[in-house]
């Protein structure tokens, strides 16, 4: 098992990381045999690039000597579209960014516009936001963890994860009528209050049933020796490099940096809630996987508190006055939320009209993926797949 990570400082002063394969240079007699590197294009149609990622990979046998991500296959010019939509209308487009966790996209945009326009969100709406965001975080992590199993060849965890995710999607569908493109968190609040009755029962049932299911599914992966062999010590990302690259979310916390927007730059109801920022010190694929699993448990913890708060905060107004035709004064604001993939920020400039003058989306997947060319080299092809899976990019979010 390869556990060592090498760092080399190359002439241009750029820090490069990589696996044990970096040392696999031919020595002695092998020099006499002329060998050539194999250049392959991994993706954009490839089962484990999680969408339309294309990697230009240079292989020396099974060793990856160079990896260069090529993105943009899903670019839809969302930032330009934003300049042609009203503040209220653009919210529906944000669903299409990180389509695995659209609630976070809704929230990031809504928080930014509220900051710019000085809107106050009603307390009940804040509670609804936390609940749907955390549910969505679990759903998103389940996709990530499940497909990670699939990347490593285990099919069952994927199905188990999607079965649980289905429960969450049903809950969210009851809340907002859609399973992926929620458009639920609106500028100034939420679209509608949470439904009562059956929804509440099923929500509580989910909170009770999910943790054992998660443990069971986790048994299949993180307690399996083959899985550990494939992930432990693979794709190590040291903390200083992770910060230098600006990574966030499980990728950064897997390297031991306790940076979570919900704690670092608190928003909404999060300062009142009790949860831990999950970190793992090792920075390898296993650490990133474990952070995701543990975050799901933390989300359940948050949701249990929210379940109590639902009784304390009475139903009432859920959309701030004047949110529909919001017209912020000229100015600019940067606001961010913790999406399942990390710091999802929106930099918004207003010129006083009803449409954004400029909107810049700080997508966590984009930043996290940029670290791949640094940590992806020096490993085997199979490890590269594991590393991509542990970074968990979503291409709606990367390419925007």
């Amino acid at each position, binding site marked *: 098992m390869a556990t060592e990570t090498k760092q080399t400082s190359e002439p*241009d*002063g*750029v*820090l490069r990381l990589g696996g044990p394969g970096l040392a696999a240079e031919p020595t002695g007699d092998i020099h006499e045999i002329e060998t050539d590197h194999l250049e392959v294009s991994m993706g954009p149609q490839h089962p484990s690039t999680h969408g339309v990622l294309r990697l230009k990979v240079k292989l020396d046998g099974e060793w990856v000597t160079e990896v260069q991500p090529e*993105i*943009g296959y899903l*670019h839809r*010019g969302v*930032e*330009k*579209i934003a300049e*042609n939509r009203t503040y209220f209308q653009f919210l529906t487009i944000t669903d299409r960014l990180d389509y695995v966790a659209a609630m976070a996209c809704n929230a990031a945009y809504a928080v930014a516009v509220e*900051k*710019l326009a*000085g809107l106050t969100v009603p307390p009940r709406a804040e509670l609804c936001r936390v609940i749907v965001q955390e549910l969505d975080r679990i759903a998103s992590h389940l996709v990530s963890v499940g497909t990670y199993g699939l990347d490593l060849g285990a099919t069952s965890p994927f199905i188990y994860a999607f079965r649980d995710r289905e429960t969450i999607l049903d809950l969210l569908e009851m809340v907002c009528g859609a399973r992926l493109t929620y458009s639920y968190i609106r500028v100034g609040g939420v679209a509608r209050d949470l439904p009562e009755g059956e929804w509440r029962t099923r929500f509580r049932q989910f909170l009770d049933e999910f943790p054992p299911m998660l443990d069971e599914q986790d048994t299949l992966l993180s307690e399996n020796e083959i899985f550990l062999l494939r992930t432990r010590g693979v794709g190590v990302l040291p903390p200083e*490099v992770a*910060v*230098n*690259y*600006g*990574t966030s979310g499980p990728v*950064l916390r897997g390297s031991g*940096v*306790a*940076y979570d927007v919900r704690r*670092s*730059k*608190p928003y909404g109801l999060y300062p009142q809630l009790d949860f831990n920022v999950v970190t793992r010190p090792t920075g390898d694929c296993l650490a990133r996987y474990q952070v995701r699993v543990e975050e799901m448990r933390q989300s359940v913890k948050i949701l249990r508190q929210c379940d109590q708060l639902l009784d304390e905060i009475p139903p009432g107004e859920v959309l701030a006055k004047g949110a529909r035709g919001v017209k912020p004064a000229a*100015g*600019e*604001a*940067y606001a*961010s939320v913790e999406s399942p993939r990390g*710091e999802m*920020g929106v*930099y918004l*400039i207003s010129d006083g009209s009803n449409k954004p003058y*400029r909107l*810049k989306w*700080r997508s966590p997947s*984009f*930043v996290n*993926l*940029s*670290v791949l060319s*640094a940590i992806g080299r020096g490993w085997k092809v199979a490890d590269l797949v594991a590393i991509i899976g542990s970074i968990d990019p979503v291409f709606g979010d990367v*390419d*925007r």
Partner: protein
Amino acid sequence: MSTELPDSPEEAKPADDIFGLYGLEDLLGEGVEVSVPPVGDPVVTIAREKLLEACRFFKEEQGFDYLILVSGVDRGDHLESVIHLGKADAPNIVILKTAVPYDDPHVPSVTPLWQGANWHERESFDLMGIIYDGHPDLRRILLFPEWDEYPHPLRKEFRLPSLEGKYTVE
């Protein structure tokens, strides 16, 4: 070296304390201006010659080690390169802005300080047309290399087909 920070973000940003808090007095001078807008975070406007120096100051002396965002803005009469800096362990944000004329859109790249700027700057170059000097690999990232319909689609001159309402009453 970093200044001691209060716990909550509200305390961290009283407008009159900004210079002391971020140690901006040392930096102020020719080509560096500070403004604290009513909404949002403190903005430091920097001439592009001093950008790298200012970034190094923020990173190494003020502990702004976390690069959030590098972006470009088309202000109508000039371009603007905007850098959002944060800290990995504190809520502070500072925004660095550099004005860039249309006919000479060059800005020093901050990749020597933050590797993470690499893709942000490529994107800004791709969509906004700002050229980052010293960038190791400045080429298109989101659009395909042969894109020439309009070189930099996020500039204001590039207009999308208008979305007229299709509502008619005779």
